């Protein structure tokens, strides 16, 4: 089953939120998901400790550089989707995880700083494609976006498209419910109402659909 690696050397880009939103929506849609928490900040483990982990999701914590390849290999074969949440630094752990990916998602806030640092992940993917002689599908998702799109957002998006970078639509908007996942644990459907829950669930589900479409397009 596919391994999805969430990678950006930029901290605070929304990697862990993206991983949890994607995992919970895929699990809700019937998939078994293994989440690998490779971030020393243990964001996924924090989420998993807040409430019962949703049905069909398993979280493995403290996966380091030494274990990442064999852990992915072990779970890549038993009918589960593996989602790897990486630390927000440029490390060898990131290189190793990407070498085992079927899809790399780079979350990016629509700011120049996030785009500049986030692009380093895209460069790494290109280098690894060459080194490993295989295509590594990848895409960027904008995170924490606002209802009204800024000029900066439009400019960064146009620049990425010009460079042939795939963008996942819809972006993950800035929503109280997404941040509250780390307060209440579980998934969006089981937490106390936070803002416009219907819109948050729709946003999360449409994002997961887009990822699923990308995973299955070459299958």
């Amino acid at each position: 089953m596919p391994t999805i690696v969430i990678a950006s050397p930029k901290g605070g880009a929304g990697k862990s939120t993206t991983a949890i939103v994607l995992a919970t929506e895929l699990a809700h849609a019937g998939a078994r998901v293994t989440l690998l928490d490779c971030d020393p900040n243990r964001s996924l483990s924090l989420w998993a400790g807040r409430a019962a982990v949703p049905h069909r999701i398993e979280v493995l914590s403290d996966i380091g550089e030494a274990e990442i390849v064999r852990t992915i290999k072990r779970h890549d074969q038993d009918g589960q989707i593996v989602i790897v949440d990486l630390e927000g630094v440029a490390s060898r752990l990131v290189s190793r995880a990407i070498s085992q990916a079927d899809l790399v998602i780079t979350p990016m806030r629509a700011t120049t700083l996030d785009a500049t640092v986030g692009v380093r992940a895209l460069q790494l993917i290109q280098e690894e494609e060459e080194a490993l002689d295989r295509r590594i599908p990848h895409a960027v998702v904008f995170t924490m976006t606002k209802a009204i799109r800024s000029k900066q957002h439009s400019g960064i998006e146009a620049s990425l498209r010009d460079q042939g970078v795939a963008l996942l639509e819809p972006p993950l908007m800035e929503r109280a419910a997404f941040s509250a996942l780390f307060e209440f644990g579980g998934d969006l459907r089981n937490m106390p109402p936070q803002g416009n829950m219907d819109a948050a669930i729709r946003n999360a589900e449409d994002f997961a659909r887009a990822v699923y479409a990308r995973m299955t397009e070459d299958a």
Partner: protein
Amino acid sequence: MTSKPFSVDLGRLRSREKDHSAAAVERAERAGEELGFVDRAPGRRRGRKPSPRTGQVHAKVLPHVATEIAGEARRRGVQQGVILEEAWALYKAAEEAEK
């Protein structure tokens, strides 16, 4: 947005063939290192580990004494520190006797 409930067809999800070999991982690492994706794992502590019984690194003695202490500890099934503690107790007892 679509009104049809989102459902995952596991049969359509396929993992691509990937090279898990050490050589492939090393090639990926080398590609990463050139872009600054380097080893940032916390360094391992060098040298002998402290004793789990006392939390201390063993005292150093001459090699032939170390061999004899290790042999005696092995024969009795105790830690080497126990032999040293007993020797220290004997030394203190002898000191007391001399007073």
